[in-house]
């Protein structure tokens, strides 16, 4: 029973009353959050606020102790595993850039394409023109056309971040969960990344976790601040950054 | 290396590549992996096939030294047929397929005249096809389960009727044992020996309830439960004894547990077929006083031949504490038989030696003269020894004469009609009922 009888919500992602604890530590505590279709949302919050754990829950890596997690208003994500959730169209970029280091940039994108992912399909796979065109397009978007035959492991940190975003694009999901995309990037790169995300947001729903407030400001989207596993404040960047509690626990005086 | 070569090959022209590959392949394969055998016609090569590493090294290394010692002694006497004997030592590393490989190497490459080797049954089984195929001689020095008589193998260890049955007879007569624990390691020798003993005991009127059979894995080290079970089995009001076919390694913890749980030989004696001087060297034997072992040789037997052997052996190994044991004596007998047979036919040709060996007599170390029988087993005396506090045995009983080794047990259904006779019938499994060679021959 993955699909509910009626659409419970119009939201793309809907979290309600989610709890998770690890050995008595409450990582997520009555977390409720909704993400509308086509929206881009920035998530901020101090270390240990539960940002990554929240992503783990949405992508099926961690099962919540209680609470509702719905995708597209109909699909109960808590019952599905990572593979199934990815197939539904939720893509994820990790906090630490995770690409297939011993394979070329091009192969990384090839692996990400949302084509037949079965054992048989991959064994008898032969490239098609459409596929290579898509890869070319993504390579262009993430500015790695020249590096297409290099091993991903030899890329710079920023390039790896982009490659991972590129892999998300190739995967073409409905929702992108992006965890700290600009960590370790130069100012120029940060700026370019913000532009890139805004571009992607035209056709995709995005949730971005980031500490870099300049970057968050540049995105210019609704911000949610998490603290101790639940929502502390929500609103525009100016509203949130002027919130007393947010300043106290996160931004600092 | 290989890739480099293949890269090279790939860039060559096809014809040259083919030629080069052919040369390379043959060169690689034909250049034997061993140091080139010297063409020495002035020596006779003797192969030694005992594990020097791995789990069996514990038992077999001594036998390698024994043959080296015997060869050394023989060479001091001028060798055989005027030629010196040259030992060829290989290490089959307690690995059964490696035994076969090494046997093949000894015979084909080193061209040995005879091989002394193997300890476990499986190693013998593994090399058997090789000796048959390449027609060479193996002297096998360890007590074993019998049920075999091969043209190329000479069995100088005890067959079950030369060890197990006399021991049980002794316990029945001397100790009035009525209840029996047959404890063994789960492999072929204990299984077969226990089958034979079970049949034998039943033929002597022992009830099924009075026989307990227990098998443990190799290297079993936690004997608490089994020793307690033995104790329990022994408390049924009848005199109880344990017949142990427990394999070498597991014996030390077994005896330690027996000693600690206070099972004394006067309560429940244990008679073992695989525990000799070498195994006792690893145990404090004081708590084991009076437990028994059945062998065809004990170091403590006082004969001039034995005393001389021990003295020379200890001098050879430069270790005044080095013990001797039954399989060593088996090699001693086997080696001397082979020397006599070679001198009789004035040749080391395996066919001639194999035909000459039955009937050859050689003195053993316990004062008798053992004889090679047509079934390729030998005659041996059987001794029952009690463990003494100093790690030696005290002989408490012996057979009046020498016992002829049976290749096929009379107690087992499948083999009671079989005999091995390589002199008259030229057959290892001759069925005396059907008068045909080849088992039941039905």
């Amino acid at each position, binding site marked *: 029973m993955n699909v509910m009888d009626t659409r419970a919500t119009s939201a793309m992602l809907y979290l309600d009353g989610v709890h998770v604890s690890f050995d008595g530590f409450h990582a997520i505590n009555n977390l409720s959050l909704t993400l509308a279709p086509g929206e881009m949302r920035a998530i901020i919050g101090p270390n240990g606020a539960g940002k990554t754990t929240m992503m783990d829950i949405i992508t099926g890596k961690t099962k919540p102790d209680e609470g509702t997690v719905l995708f597209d208003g109909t699909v109960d994500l808590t019952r599905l595993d990572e593979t199934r959730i990815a197939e539904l169209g939720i893509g994820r970029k990790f906090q630490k850039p995770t690409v297939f280091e011993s394979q070329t940039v091009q192969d990384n994108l090839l692996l990400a394409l949302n084509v037949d992912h079965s054992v048989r399909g991959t064994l008898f796979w032969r490239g098609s023109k459409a596929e290579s065109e898509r890869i070319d397009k993504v390579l262009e978007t993430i500015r790695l056309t020249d590096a297409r035959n290099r091993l991903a492991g030899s890329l710079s940190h920023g390039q790896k971040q982009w490659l991972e975003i590129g892999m998300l694009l190739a995967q073409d999901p409905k929702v992108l969960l992006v965890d700290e995309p600009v960590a370790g990037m130069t100012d120029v790169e940060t700026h370019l990344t913000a532009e890139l995300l805004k571009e992607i947001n035209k056709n995709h729903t995005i949730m971005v976790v980031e500490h870099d407030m300049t970057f968050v400001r540049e995105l210019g989207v609704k911000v949610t601040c998490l603290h101790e596993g639940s929502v502390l404040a929500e609103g525009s960047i100016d509203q949130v950054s002027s919130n007393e509690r947010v300043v106290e626990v996160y931004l600092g005086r | 290396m290989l890739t480099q070569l293949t890269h090279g090959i790939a860039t060559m022209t096809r014809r040259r590549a083919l030629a080069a590959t052919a040369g390379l392949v043959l060169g690689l394969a034909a250049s034997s992996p061993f140091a080139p055998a010297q063409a020495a016609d002035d020596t006779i090569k003797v192969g030694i096939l005992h594990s020097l590493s791995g789990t069996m090294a514990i038992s077999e290394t001594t036998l390698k030294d024994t043959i080296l010692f015997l060869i050394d002694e023989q060479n001091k006497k001028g060798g055989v047929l005027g030629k010196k004997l040259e030992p060829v030592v290989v290490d089959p590393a307690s690995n059964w397929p490696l035994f076969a490989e090494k046997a093949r190497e000894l015979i084909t490459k080193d061209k040995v005249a005879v091989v002394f080797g193997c300890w476990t049954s499986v190693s013998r089984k593994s090399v058997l096809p090789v000796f048959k195929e390449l027609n060479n001689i193996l002297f096998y020095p360890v007590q074993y389960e019998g049920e075999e008589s091969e043209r190329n193998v000479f069995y100088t260890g005890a067959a079950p009727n030369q060890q197990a049955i006399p021991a049980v007879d002794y316990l029945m007569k*001397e100790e009035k044992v009525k209840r029996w624990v047959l404890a063994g390691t789960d492999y072929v020798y204990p299984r077969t020996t226990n089958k034979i003993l079970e049949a034998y005991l039943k033929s002597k009127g022992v009830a099924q309830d009075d026989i307990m059979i227990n098998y443990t*894995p190799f290297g079993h080290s936690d004997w608490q439960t089994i020793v307690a079970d033995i104790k329990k089995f022994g408390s049924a*009001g009848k005199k109880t004894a344990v017949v142990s076919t427990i394999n070498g390694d597991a014996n030390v913890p077994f005896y330690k547990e027996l000693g*600690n749980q206070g099972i004394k030989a006067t309560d429940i004696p244990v008679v073992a077929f695989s525990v000799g001087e070498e195994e006792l060297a690893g*145990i404090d034997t004081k708590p084991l006083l009076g437990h028994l072992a059945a062998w065809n040789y004990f170091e403590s037997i006082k004969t001039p031949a034995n005393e001389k052997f021990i003295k020379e052996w200890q001098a050879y190994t430069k270790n005044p504490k080095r013990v001797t044991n039954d399989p060593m004596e088996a090699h001693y007998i086997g080696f001397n038989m082979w020397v006599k047979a070679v001198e009789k036919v004035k040749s080391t040709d395996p066919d001639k030696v194999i035909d000459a060996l039955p009937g050859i007599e050689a003195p053993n170390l316990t004062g008798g003269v053992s004889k090679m029988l047509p079934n390729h087993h030998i005659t041996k005396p059987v001794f029952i020894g009690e463990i003494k506090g100093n790690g030696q045995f005290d002989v*408490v009983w012996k057979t009046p004469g020498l016992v002829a080794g049976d290749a096929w047990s009379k107690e087992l259904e499948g083999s009671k009609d079989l005999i091995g006779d390589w002199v008259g019938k030229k057959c290892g499994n001759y069925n005396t009922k059907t008068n045909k060679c080849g088992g039941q021959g039905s």
Partner: protein
Amino acid sequence: MPALAGPFEDSVAKFANDEFSDTEAAIGEVAASGNALAPRIIGALQDGRLSADPDSKKVFITQTDGKIVDATTGAAVDKLPDNAAAVRLNNRLRRTVEAALGGLTLLSSDPAKRLAAAQSVFKSHEENLLPTVESALAKESVKPIKQAFAEARAAIILFKSDASDSDKLDAVAVVKARGDQEALALLTGLGDQPPLVAKAAASAVSSIQSNLAMWSMVQNAWYGLSLGSVLLLAAIGLAITFGVMGVINMAHGEMVMIGAYTTFVVQEVIRTRYPALFDYSLLIAVPLAFLVAGLIGVVIERTIIRFLYGRPLETLLATWGLSLVLQQAVRTAFGPTNREVGNPSWMSGAFELGQITITYNRLWILCFTLAVFAILLAMLRYTALGLEMRAVTQNRRMAASMGIATSRVDALTFGLGSGIAGIAGVALSQIDNVSPNLGQSYIIDSFMVVVFGGVGNLWGTLVGAFTLGIANKFLEPVAGAVLGKIAILVLIILFIQKRPRGLFALKGRAVEA
């Protein structure tokens, strides 16, 4: 043949014939002679101190103080004749000796001898000893010995054909109260009895049997604890090198072996130089084994392991190679055969607890294991080194930046794990072979324990070891040793499916990073 003076001398001279039947006759005659020397002769015979000269037919006693006396006269003799040899015994004769000695020492002034005598009479139940037993019983004041005499008397009465039914019924009750396996053996071996007695005996047998069956559960539990302690001891060093450091050390078993060989060397030195210290040999061996194995561990860490951090599967290969080298090195240095490591007196023997036998060596090993565990736990928790170890293993970079010399800590941690394996070797030398193969037989079990318990958790290792030990010992009587072990392995495989990180797995985000 020299002329012999009288029947006692005739009897004693039979010892010199070196025939078991003559020796047996001699024992009976000497014991029955009433001669004052009889207990000394038979006591000497039991201990192998009775020698005889086959030519002169003279028999001598070597006293415990080394002096030699003529067995017939008690007169001191300078030295044994050259061809005198100890009078030989076999098991049947040993039993005869025990029975004879039992009769002779029932009235001994030494309480221990009286107790032993009573117990041997219980087993031999010789009818002609009844009057002696009864008079001893009447005189006895020490309670447990009095009890033993009563049981010995009951045993004799049960086998006495002319005893009255009521006496026999009382005797059955006494033996039933004893309730152990020997009582069971006595009652089941009774033979023909009057119907009333037979019935009482049968009910006593079944009552003892059901009592013993209950005790056998306790016994299994004890055996399980004991096996668990051995597993724990073998695995605990691995829990450090593998569990805490993540190094798959296939040479762990060889560290155990080195510990055992250290014990052997210590005992050799003690045997040849300071025999009086033998009972302390293990106490001396423990720190030495820790140092030797620990030092070798540090050397291994410095020369091999440290180049392989973060690649545990490669350390597996390298340490496997190392284990081959170490095994063969020991084989070359000490020879391939087993080496004798003795049990000190306090590790030998057993005592009865209810109806189960607890051997001292197993008990000490259990205590020792728990002590090692406690010390290790305390060390990790309360010492600076322990703190540093935990810091380094949890976050190497952070620890390094806080000024901890990580490479030193690595070496010490590995040394500690190896040293503990060495200590395990000391204990295992008491129950197992000391041979180059010693380590191999424990390595797989050790890995199973650590993985089952949960890597990186010492408590998990403790619980894992005892769980596996007890499960094994409860399965063994049902399934046999081999099938029991197979069942345990299959259970571990299935268990890991259920809990892929062992019994006490760490949860949360950190472990998956």
